[in-house]
């Protein structure tokens, strides 16, 4: 009988929110593990990020004397915004409850707000590293966000909607091989690397304070604040992987109103997709060096240009 039970939008939404929350540290752990293995190291256990979060949550949060109220609330804002954004992306099923009230533009806006507040917090304490991190982050953001908007436009033009559940359904139905979509995928990968402070834009494993971007902004955080920010960045990484999976490889997604076993298959396929994405990321990061800070605009400029071209191409092909 359970097969016959139709899963409603509400329960899907809740399970999806919990899934991204609980699953995201595992992805971070996987990337670290694969990177370590590629470097012939044993690497930390897959579950290490969970242990780190628990350890941080138990610790006392030390706050700088010069910190304002903003510094204390930013971790919560960043975490909440990122979590909500992640909850809006169909991971294993398309019939999300929130989907109908929020589309891709909202996701970008939520991530943008999170970044804005994090940059403010970086400058709030007044240390030089926080300032450096914030200014570099702002430089990256000014290029990454427009690029992301252009990518969204390209996708929206192809699918006729900015609504991710709809986009996924249309992609599933088949839109054929499109040059514009290829460009959008390439651009989205670049933006995802930059947004998640991954190589070649930022090195998540660095100990060199002068080269940090994301790490420099959160350098002053400790305890539960740091745990929230770490969890937020793990969710963000999962968010981008889910976004790419949802739009470009939507196979396996359970449509709205499907029976339970379809949803279970959808979840298994999703985990497989994310696992592959994590491995690819680790391999890519191992094979390249980090860029000079001032090369980053060129790199992101390429993403912006690809986004533009993708949109433009659609218009041109349509008017012909």
């Amino acid at each position, binding site marked *: 009988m359970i097969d016959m039970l139709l899963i409603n939008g509400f329960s899907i939404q809740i399970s999806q929110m919990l899934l991204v929350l609980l699953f995201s540290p595992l992805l971070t752990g996987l990337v670290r593990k694969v990177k370590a293995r590629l*470097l012939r190291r044993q690497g930390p256990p897959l579950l290490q990020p969970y242990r780190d979060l628990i350890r941080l949550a138990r610790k006392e949060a030390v706050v700088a004397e010069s910190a304002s109220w903003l510094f204390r609330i930013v971790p919560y804002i960043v975490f909440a915004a990122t979590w909500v954004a992640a909850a809006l992306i169909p991971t294993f099923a398309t019939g999300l409850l929130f989907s109908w009230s929020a589309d891709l533009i909202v996701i970008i806006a939520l991530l943008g707000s999170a970044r804005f507040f994090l940059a403010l917090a970086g400058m709030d304490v007044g240390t030089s590293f926080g300032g450096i991190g914030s200014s570099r982050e702002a430089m990256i953001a000014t290029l990454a966000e427009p690029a992301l908007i252009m990518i969204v436009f390209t996708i929206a033009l192809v699918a006729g909607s900015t609504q991710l559940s709809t986009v996924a359904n249309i992609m599933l139905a088949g839109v054929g091989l499109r040059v514009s979509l290829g460009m959008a995928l390439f651009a989205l990968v670049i933006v995802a690397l930059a947004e998640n402070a991954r190589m070649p834009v930022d*090195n998540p*494993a660095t100990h060199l304070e002068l080269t940090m971007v994301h790490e420099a902004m959160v350098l002053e955080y400790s305890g539960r604040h740091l745990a929230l920010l770490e969890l937020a960045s793990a969710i963000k990484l999962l968010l981008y992987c889910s976004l790419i999976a949802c739009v470009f490889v939507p196979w396996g997604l359970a449509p709205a109103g499907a029976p339970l076993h379809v949803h279970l298959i959808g979840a298994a396929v999703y985990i497989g997709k994310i696992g592959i994405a994590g491995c690819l990321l680790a391999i890519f990061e191992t094979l*390249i*060096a*980090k860029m*000079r800070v001032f090369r980053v605009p060129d790199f992101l400029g390429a993403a912006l240009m690809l986004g533009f071209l993708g949109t433009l191409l659609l218009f041109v092909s349509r008017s012909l």
Partner: protein
Amino acid sequence: MQSMIKAMAGTPPHAHHPWPRRIVDADTWSALAAQLAEGRWTLAGLWGDAGAVHMALLDMSRGESQGELAVASLPCPTGQFPSVARRHPPAHRLERTIADLFGLEPVGAPDDRPWLDHGRWRVGHPLGITTETSGEGAPYAFLTAEGEGLHRIGVGPVHAGIIEPGHFRFTANGETVVRLEERLGYTHKGVESLMAGASLERAARLAGRISGDSTVAYSIAFARAAEAALGIEIPARAHWLRALMAELERIANHVGDIGAACNDAAFALMHAHTAVLRERVLRQSSACFGHRLMMDKVVPGGVAIDLDRAGAEGIRSLMATIRQAFPPLIELFDNTASLQDRTVGAGILSHALAHQYGCGGYVGRASGRAFDTRRDLAYPPYDSLRFDVPLFQEGDVNARLWVRIREVEQSLGLIDQLLEGMPSGDISVAIGHGPETREGIALVEGFRGDILCWLRLDPTGIVERCHLRDPSWFQWPVLEAAIEGNIVADFPLCNKSFNCSYSGHDL
């Protein structure tokens, strides 16, 4: 050089070997400083003594492999001496150190701030006329750079990574470095105070601990200075074993550095591979000589441990392993565009500065200063071995790494020759002590560059004064110049390509 020595028309008070030492007056001292500024000599060292200052000058005017060294000493009964730094900037920090340790004042010095002494020793001028201080530390006046939009970034002395402590004060315009000022001295251990009054054996152990990664080179420098002072000839086999250890040390450090520099450009792949190679060298060293870094294996009078047949075989197979593993790594280094993009053109050190400061090692040789003690002031067994001194002109991070790569290849060749031609016989001779006070000096090529050791032994064989000058003394200052105009985020990479010693510099 002969003319210089004639100009220094003072009689030496003690026997000083192998290069001459002369007592000079203040005028000659100043004239020598002027000649340094003109570039006739290179400053090889400047250090204090009880009531005197000494200056080691290197003369390369006779060309390659014809280098000569001489020491000029100026007695300063009034506690003052004419500043060399006034004319020749490389002497700056050395003079500030003399003022810190001995209380001798360089007259006319443009910079009278303390250097090694941060006001936390509770004693002023520990090697001169001591004074009591509060030990609470004194504020330090960093140099200023003013202008619109400039901001300061202080880094260290405690860093996020596991490295030695040093403070770097950047003044930056956005990301561009306008000025970098270093502040060192955090690892001051009082080596020179500990040396005074130490037995030869204890002093040799101290010398081997000044900079752990160069322990063999330091030990050789100290041993050679002691042997020169005492007029001891050590067995040929001891010379060859020393060189073998020194080349193993050089390979381990260079290979490690190449990987570490790539790691600072976030290219961890190189680091992982080179770390394996370095570890192999260290383990083989441990197997052959009983210590991974070969610490205390070079002693005055020879070496402390002989190489057996199995050890030689082990090193041979290690060399084969490196010959097989190293070239693909270099190919990886050279063919990774994203890495080359970071190293090429970053942190350029000019030809002129490298010559002015007499930068030793890969820092000098990457900027066109072809100086290698093993060739230019050759000591056994290098005088009978064939090797090249790699030279690059670009002066950037890439060139400094390439010098290391080429030097590893040269060291591999040297080790082959050393194993092939290793003479048999004793590995050490007994050392006594002279009936009178004796002095010795040595210049030895460590992996960073030339290490100077100057030593005075009293008639009972106790060290009266020993000064060891790390190559970093002439490399740290030019790092400040090399980083200018680069971006802040490139500093770690540039710094790693210099890889100066904190411990060796801070003494």
